[in-house]
């Protein structure tokens, strides 16, 4: 643990580094209620001390720029530097959202074109770029409950979610004022249709589905599922966190989804930034367009401008228009790749995951013995030590641990307690993948020789292993 910024010795300058020679602030009477007399307790450092402190901290961090990051469900692909550069153009970064509309047409143009491109990639009719992240997109999608209110179907109070669903799905359902019912997974890893049928009652507003699922498998029964949901008068919601498997191959809209969100910080390469900001555009079919959170970008053949359906829109999801600085990077990504490039991204994402699944199967066989999509779910039962401990040793070889129970962003039910979800992404070369496989094998060998040694890894970082579910020290 490095010295805290608050424990650094005061530089002793204690000086106000802020001045304007034309404004003397000494002697001003501040006519405000509750003036402060005591110090706040902020640091007192020179600029170079601040720079060195944070530079030190970056050295104890690890990103895609540092090496392989096969964290399942997180799509840690390369984040193109050119996109960062272009998002920082003064005509984007230095624009105030309250400026007159005619002074920000370029903003609305980028947003409008991105909306259209997302429509095409996902097979939807309209998008709002407003949501701040995937979970916020889910919430926006579920607020479309207003659609049922308008139809006078207020009794639709339930959202169905798969037992393997990401935690945000049931949490979003609650936050939108619904109750949840859980649908189980069958032994081949897809949704149990019998269970779905028995839970599909008149009180169901929507089924939330991730496809490919968080188990890395395509829902082979998707058309049947869509038919059942629609016959019940319910909506089908697409959690687009795993879209990276499908671009240019199959579109959620064509599979029968009515509402979708995507995570630009997964599929569309915008940086994860240590947890965010990302962006979670929400898209719908025509009959739900008026309900989108607004304002959205519009175009009348001449000008680009913000618009909102005053009567039906569910309202605003946040202040401003969306995470424009993030969205512009997604826009750049789509333009750079073009239609064939995007399809090749998805093909290679799936190719890479299957290549790893095949390469690792001797030591960590797949949970479901079939081809996977963009990520593979492997069974760590044969590892002789816990998957958690095994993964920690990977760190010493500069491979970020994959997603595991208690360490990652997906949810595994009890019977998948030792499952390992690996998502290499398409930007890893074959050499990178071969290295990942050899690292896993090396650790496997190490376990055979000295399990205790591996159990206490990692050894190359500033701190030692942190046990699962460690108690906070107050």
């Amino acid at each position, binding site marked *: 643990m490095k010295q805290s910024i608050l424990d650094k010795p005061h530089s002793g300058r204690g000086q106000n580094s802020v001045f304007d020679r034309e404004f003397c602030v000494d002697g001003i009477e501040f006519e405000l209620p509750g003036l402060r007399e005591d110090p706040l307790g902020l640091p007192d450092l020179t600029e170079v001390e601040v720079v060195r402190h944070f530079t030190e901290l970056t050295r104890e961090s690890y990103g895609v720029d540092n090496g392989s990051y096969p964290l399942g469900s997180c799509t840690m692909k390369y984040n193109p530097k050119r996109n960062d550069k272009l998002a920082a153009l003064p005509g984007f970064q230095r624009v105030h959202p309250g400026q007159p509309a005619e002074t920000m047409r370029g903003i609305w143009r980028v947003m409008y074109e991105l909306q259209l491109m997302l429509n095409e990639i996902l097979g939807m009719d309209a998008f709002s770029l407003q949501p701040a992240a995937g979970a916020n997109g889910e919430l926006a999608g579920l607020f479309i409950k207003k659609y049922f209110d308008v139809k006078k179907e207020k009794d639709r109070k339930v959202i169905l979610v798969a037992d393997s669903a990401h935690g945000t799905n049931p949490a979003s359902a609650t936050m939108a004022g619904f109750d949840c019912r859980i649908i189980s997974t069958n032994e081949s890893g897809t949704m149990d249709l019998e269970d779905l049928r028995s839970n599909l009652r008149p009180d169901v507003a929507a089924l939330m589905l991730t496809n490919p699922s968080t188990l890395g498998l*395509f829902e082979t029964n998707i058309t049947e599922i869509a038919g059942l949901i629609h016959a019940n008068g319910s909506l089908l919601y697409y959690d687009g966190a795993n879209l990276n498997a499908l671009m240019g191959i199959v579109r959620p809209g064509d599979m029968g989804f009515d509402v979708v969100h995507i995570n630009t910080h997964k599929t569309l390469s915008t940086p994860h930034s240590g947890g965010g900001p990302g962006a979670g555009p929400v898209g719908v079919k025509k009959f739900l367009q008026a309900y989108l959170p607004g304002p959205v970008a519009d175009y009348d053949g001449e000008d680009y401008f913000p618009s909102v359906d005053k009567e039906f829109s569910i309202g605003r999801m946040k202040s401003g228009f969306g995470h424009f600085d993030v969205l512009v990077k997604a826009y750049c990504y789509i333009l750079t790749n073009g239609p064939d490039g995007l399809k090749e991204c998805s093909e290679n994402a799936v190719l890479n995951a299957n290549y790893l699944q095949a390469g690792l199967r001797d030591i960590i066989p797949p949970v479901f013995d079939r081809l996977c999509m963009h990520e593979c779910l492997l069974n760590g039962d044969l590892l002789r030590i816990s998957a958690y401990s095994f993964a920690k040793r990977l760190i010493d070889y500069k491979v970020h641990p994959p997603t595991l129970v208690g360490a990652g962003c997906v949810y595994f039910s009890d019977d998948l307690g030792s499952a390992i979800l690996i998502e290499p992404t398409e930007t890893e070369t074959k050499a990178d993948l071969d290295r990942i496989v050899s690292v896993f094998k090396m650790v496997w060998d190490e376990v055979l020789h000295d399990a205790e040694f591996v159990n206490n890894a990692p050894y190359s970082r500033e701190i030692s292993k942190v046990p699962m579910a460690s108690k906070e020290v107050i």
Partner: protein
Amino acid sequence: MAGSYNTHSEQTRSEMLGEIGVESIDHLFDDVPGEVRLDRTLDLPQAISEWELESILKSHSRCNQNVDDFSCLIGGGKYNHQVPAVVDAIVSRGEFLTSYTPYQPEMSQGILQALFEYQQLMSKVTGLPVVNSSSYDGATALVDAAWMACSIQGRKRILVSSAIWDEHREVLDTYLEPRGVKISMVGICNRTGGVDRNELEERLGKEEFAGFLFQSPNSLGIVEDVEKINRIIQKSDCLSVLSFTPLLSGLLKTPGEMGVDIVVGEGQPLGIHLNAGGSSLGILSTKDCYRRFVPGRIVGKVTDIKGNLAYSLVFEDREQQVARDKATSNICSNQAMNAIRACIFLGCYGEAGFAGLARLNYAKAHYLRDRLGTLKGLSFPFSGPFFNEFVVGLPKSAGDVLAYLTQQSIFGGLDCSQKFGLDHAILISVTENLSKSELDHFVTQLGEAIR
């Protein structure tokens, strides 16, 4: 090979397919039913090179005016404060920028420490011990606080000052109506522009609310008397929820010291670019006793197997990945890098600089207010104290005045006509970024505009 980021040659792809034991790429997708597969190429523009991309984006960006070329007197929750170069330099480092949420503490001590220090420094600014490591923005943080109040009090009814940003009010409606929370409003005192404290006292005496939500400076720029308002709130069984501009703590006692239970705010002024409105930062801070109601990530200290202290995400049983439908919120990805921006910002300015910044904003805004007082035809409808933003009444349509100013390369403020009984009026904000000559020029041009 299409696109720029694909790594395999056709040759490599065949080798890999051979290892997998599949004949073609197409067979990898055998699970996708034929009838839904896309049988054409996506209808998108063809791939382009880096220089073509740059030329397109530059051309789009030039369709916008920006605050480097204009004098910006627009505020309304987002402000043209200086973003120190140090902030941009640090957050663009790939070790931070391209990392995921720090689920693996052994690999992420640096980013965890930066987030922990954000919590610590922000806690100094709010005056309350608990800070989450971010909500999406000032508006959603206010929703989070309202929901916390409802959960803490077991009561789905909140009272809200009518002088909060319109956008924040809209966002409250979007989120809280579907959850069955009833929102009631308290008006302002027409003389001062602050919360009508008599009405507040009356409402709190009659009905039970989970919390009273108010904003300072409020949407008319008035700095509320937080202590007096809290004394009224404390007479009832209702929580005090303040949405504030963090820069205020450069001058004033912290909200915590003044008795607020939950403090939220828009963190954009702290080293985050305007970005046409996003991304920004939601600040949320509260007392220890309410910690289990807090949404989102919290970084804390744990011990590694050698007994040494280490940073880690903690108290995750509140969060969606553990509690699922019982979670305090559905938030997952957040605004971590913008929180780190705020942390570096506070580190750069430090104790004296932060106070100096607040003083300079106050001084410049009051200078402008005094200069405008010499122009005939303007009025100043509210007598309450202000920080760096205030309302000016105009003798003619605000739309016309602002349009004239735009032609003079000035973003002259936000139109607030027809609100709170105002006729023609604008809300003007001043930051350290406006020089004396720009302020003087503004006075001249506004004089021209109302002639």
